């Protein structure tokens, strides 16, 4: 269970989140929709613990623990995963090395031993096959020279390998054509389970045709303005965000 209470956060001294309240139960998929500048990405970075995003008020309880007191790597070890809107390119670090370091760091945190090279290879092969990824992508440097679709598949692969309790998908649909979007959505759907919660952040309703949420929230001006079921997304698709004081097409 993730409980966000009255969360306020500033970036460069400017208040972006102005009191977010949100509770996400185990296995639930919540979608946050909102116009540009509403605070969607800020919320994901605050939850993941990025430097420069300062929480000024409120709390986040993550399965009973104080999430905001943890370092980013501790949050990951506790089971939080952020799929980045713009996955970072890291020249010189092979994707395979990166995945192995990440998995073994998490296993260490949980008091489990390192996987050896063979065990790890077997695990990764299984996961890549389900995502239509090639071994060649594992040998390349992390995200370097990857297409938009490859980057998002790589994020999904990391999620599949690390098996988080709670995944935040930050604008996973951005930069994807419909075919790439389907592949990524299939990968995400394969990871849905009664224990794993998800927070899907998006500007467009389209993604929610493929990753169908249990709950939809509208974020504008740093607060959740309205919550509802998946039909709320369709309503926004038709009416845009202007009911929330935002002059912008959805």
């Amino acid at each position: 269970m993730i409980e966000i209470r009255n969360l306020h956060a500033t970036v460069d001294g400017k208040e972006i989140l102005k009191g977010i309240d949100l509770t996400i139960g185990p296995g639930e998929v919540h979608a946050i929709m909102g116009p540009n500048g509403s605070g969607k990405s800020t919320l994901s970075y605050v939850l993941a613990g990025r430097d420069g995003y300062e929480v000024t008020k409120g709390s986040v309880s993550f399965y009973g623990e104080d999430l905001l007191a943890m370092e980013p790597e501790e949050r990951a070890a506790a089971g939080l995963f952020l799929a980045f809107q713009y996955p970072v390119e890291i020249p010189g670090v092979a994707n395979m090395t990166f995945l192995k370091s990440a998995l073994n760091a998490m296993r260490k945190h949980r008091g489990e031993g390192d996987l050896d090279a063979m065990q790890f290879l077997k695990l990764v092969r299984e996961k890549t096959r389900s995502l239509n990824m090639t071994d060649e992508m594992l040998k390349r440097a992390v995200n370097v020279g990857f297409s938009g679709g490859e980057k998002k598949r790589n994020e999904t692969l990391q999620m599949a390998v690390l098996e988080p309790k709670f995944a935040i998908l930050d604008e996973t649909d951005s930069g994807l054509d419909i075919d790439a979007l389907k592949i990524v959505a299939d990968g995400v759907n394969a990871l849905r389970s009664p224990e794993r919660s998800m927070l899907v952040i998006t500007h467009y309703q389209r993604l929610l045709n493929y990753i169908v949420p249990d709950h939809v929230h509208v974020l504008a001006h740093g607060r959740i303005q309205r919550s509802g079921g998946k039909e709320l997304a369709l309503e926004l698709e038709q009416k845009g965000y202007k009911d929330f004081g935002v002059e912008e097409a959805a």
Partner: protein
Amino acid sequence: MATTHSTPTGDTAAARPYLDQIDRLKGELPGAALSRVRELRRDGRERFAALGVPTVRQEAWKYTSLRPLEKVAFEPATAAAAAGTHIDVLPTVRPAGQTGPRLVFVNGRLRADLSSTDGLPDGVVLTGLADALSSHADFVGERLGRLANADEHPLVALNTAVLADGPVLHIPRGVVLDDPIELVFVSAAADGRATVFHPRTLIVADPLSKAVVIEHHVGPGGAPTFANHTAEVFVGEGATLRHYKVQREQTDAFHVSHAAATVCRDACYDNFILTSGARLSRNEVHAVLDGTGASCHVSGAYLVTGEQHCDTTTLIDHARPYGTSREVYKGAIDERARAVFQGKIIVRPGAQKTDGHQLNRALLLSDTAEIDSKPELEIYADDVKCSHGATAGELDDEALFYLRSRGIPKEEARGLLIASFLAEAIDEIPEEPVRDAFAAIATGWLAARRGGAR
């Protein structure tokens, strides 16, 4: 050479203690019967007395001050102390239990008891200079002092004034050495006395030969040492010489090295230097591409922290057409350490179709770390391709957050990013065992740095 600038002379007063030492050592030096050697030493002394110890007023030494040397009363290394120094573990890139050709020098003197030349093909000479001055007098007399320019470089002049011992390697025509040759240099201050020595290296790869030479520079520490190396390397027509060096001396050591290489037609010279040791180090590499189609790869990685100062100065001299040169240097600089990179490429008139590439990238790991980069191109031919680049930056915050968000602890993530940054240089080494060994040394440095930070 027409390329020298008129520069003020160095500090001749600071040269005096060394001149006194030269005069005292004179009677003890080997090979005094050879007139060529006597001349070299005499000219070396004369030039050093005139040039003095380099100062920051001189362009070539603008960023590296040798003033800290003046605060230490160095004594010349003695043969007895070198012979008596106990050595327990010698560095190697070979797998445990494997042996191969190796010379070990303590304070510049050959320790035959720790060295081995077993298994070398017939005709290959691998020995110390002191021995070669009598056993291969003609060869040494003909080759010594031809490449390292004592007229312009004061520390080469100083080295030449007292040249006595150091590695001599001669690979005859067409001989391909499969096994790398390891040269181990131990800097050891006997009885806690500050010690200075001047090893002299001579490598001659005859046409169509091939060899890999790996230098290890280490020291137990305890008192300051000052190693003033000069190396001369001939790479004959169509020959390949791969020359690697790792310098891991203690942080009370001074390490100055000048390597002068001439690369003949269609020959290839590789030089790679990994530096993580010494309080003050300067590696100067001069390569003259003196035959059509000659090539050189002169690269390195430097890892410095604390108060360390590390200077890399290179000169690639394209004297003939169709030459290629490639330089890739990468450095990680932490705490209050300072690194210097001066890289000069000259393309002589007529050296058409030259392809020269130079890169120096430094990673500053603290606010007080410093890098001074000075790339220079002097091009006198019109149909050439030359590029250079120098960058200084910090670790990428975004990449660091990305790694941490996947559960990788902060220091491990930093280590991964630094290692990947350095890999771009270390990957320039084509010899796999050397590349792996150097990568492991870099990883060890990162781990020790992390341990210290805790």
